[in-house]
């Protein structure tokens, strides 16, 4: 992340292995190795430019602004997504396209799937009231919750590392789309049906809260806390999807007992399914489910106090 070089002595060259693949011609991808003269404060982009201009004129990669604004130059460098225009070149690099994306040629990946899904989320402001001209009647406080979300450059680094998106047919929209949706959902001018879009179309409750998206975000958006969780809260209010019902059941169990009981929660959320029975048969003999504690014992003595404090948390806002 630091724009300042960590290198103490000036090296003379960068060794780079580039992913090469043209689906129209090649059966499988290959890697080509190049040695590029090192220059002070060299960026990944400078290495790609050098290879393209001096060594492989047919090498495909994408960039536009070279200033961390357009979001088109994200590539995998030694396995981790980086903005080529903004990160320092390492002396040994394997550069590949972002993972999980369809390759058009070499480092250029298709944004079609992302853009098609974005279009289904009505990605522009759906005004509650007619636009009355500039300036918009907005305060800084109203805009504060989405301040970081507006930094998103849609480079798709987060989409490429999301472990849920790696699962076939997950139905999950992924972090970048949720950032876009959340920005609108939290806009006081917006009247779109964001709860339904977040819950049913984007399937926000499939987020595993692993924070991998935040780890790779080049503009440091707190994606989980400021984009995804506000959407989950919106869906929770509407209360229709399984994830929201699960959260409701979780809170109910804690309030009734003073603590969570996993068996009771599972039964409330999923009911008695074949899988649940299999799991119970495995866990009861190991003492991992205590049937007496789950279904006979009343809550902890402090349950009422805990429940009352939780409830009053909503009133003191």
């Amino acid at each position: 992340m630091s724009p300042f070089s960590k290198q103490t002595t000036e090296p003379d060259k960068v060794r780079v292995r580039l992913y090469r693949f043209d689906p129209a011609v090649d059966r499988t991808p290959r890697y080509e190795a190049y040695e590029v003269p090192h220059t002070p404060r060299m960026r990944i982009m400078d290495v790609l430019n050098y290879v393209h201009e001096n060594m492989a004129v047919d090498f495909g990669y994408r960039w536009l602004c070279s200033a961390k604004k357009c979001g088109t130059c994200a590539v995998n460098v030694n396995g981790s997504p980086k903005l080529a225009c903004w990160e320092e070149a390492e002396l040994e690099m394997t550069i590949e396209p972002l993972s999980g994306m369809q390759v058009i040629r070499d480092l250029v990946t298709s944004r079609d799937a992302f853009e098609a899904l974005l279009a289904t989320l009505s990605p522009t402001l759906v005004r509650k009231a007619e636009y009355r001209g500039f300036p918009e009647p907005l305060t800084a406080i109203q805009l504060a919750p989405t301040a970081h979300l507006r930094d998103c450059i849609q480079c798709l680094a987060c989409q490429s590392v999301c472990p849920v998106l790696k699962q076939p047919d997950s139905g999950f929209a992924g972090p970048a789309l949720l950032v876009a949706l959340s920005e609108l959902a939290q806009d006081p001018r917006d009247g779109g049906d964001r709860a339904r879009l977040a819950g049913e179309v984007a399937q926000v409750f499939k987020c595993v809260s692993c924070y991998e998206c935040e780890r790779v975000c080049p503009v440091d958006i707190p994606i989980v806390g400021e984009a995804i969780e506000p959407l989950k809260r919106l869906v929770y209010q509407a209360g229709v999807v399984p994830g929201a019902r699960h959260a409701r059941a979780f809170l109910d169990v804690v309030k009734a007992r003073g603590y969570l009981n996993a068996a009771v929660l599972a039964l409330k959320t999923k009911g008695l399914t074949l899988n649940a029975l299999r799991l119970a048969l495995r866990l009861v003999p190991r003492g991992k489910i205590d049937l007496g504690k789950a279904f006979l014992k009343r809550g902890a003595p402090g349950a009422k106090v805990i429940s009352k404090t939780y409830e009053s948390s909503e009133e003191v806002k």
Partner: protein
Amino acid sequence: MKRTYAYFPGCSAKGTCRELDLSTHAVAALFGIDLVELENPGCTGAREFRAISEQLHLTANGRILALAERQGCDLVAVCDTCLLNLMETNQRLKADAVARDAVNRALAQEGLTFEGKIEVKHFLWVLTEDIGEQQLRERIVRPLRGLRVAPFYGCHIQRPAAAYAAGPAGDTPALDRLCRLLGAEVVQYEGSNKCCGFHVVGVEEKIALRMSGSHLTNAKSNGAQCIVTPCPLCHTVFDAYQPSIERELKSNYEVPVLHVSQLVGLALGLSPENLALSRHVVACEGILAHIGDSRAPQTAAPMA
């Protein structure tokens, strides 16, 4: 020196992973650590309270922190997800007076106040930072020589970066160092710092099973004899759900999964009974056979 901590075990250590609670106390006792369990602490809310209301999340966690402050000592958690909830809330309420006031208004009816006087720690860091490598090393009676251990950290003990900017947690390999110190061989594999999928297992079981299955595959194919994790939620997916993962991925693993306190306990000579190893779904006999019988501590373990 006697060390005392406020202790929040969380629902797993008191329910599906009782062996975690038992083994944590057993290891703590060896070092004269007093873990004073909080009375009626409620819940940190896992990822659920945060999905309901931010105020509920802050109040539930602020309440636990205030209870620990009343005991006058730092708070120890043994679950990654509890740890992150408590650490984030502690940082937030210390820094944000408006949020702190709102929480304290809710806590006032119980006579509790969050003042921001304590720190939150994972029991792993109590061992590696507070007890320290020197004392740990001196206590080892049976080095885990030749045991190939795959560390699995869990997300919430390492991410998000903002929560772990300061402190030992930023140093992810604390668990690697601990394993090596105990004499074990650390297995490097793709997935050790990735997500087990626990937080969707209640609603999207298949996603969680496939995610954790790929980590199990990688750990095993790199020669792991067991997995060790500081998080009971990861433990639950890898151990309790392992037969489900095997069915989903049509594969066979039989990789035992240990809590950190169990791995430490074994090297420190505690018996499998003391560490409640029989409570796991995946049998741990293979590990015990590898390292020998704990009731007859070896002075010079054979090189594997």
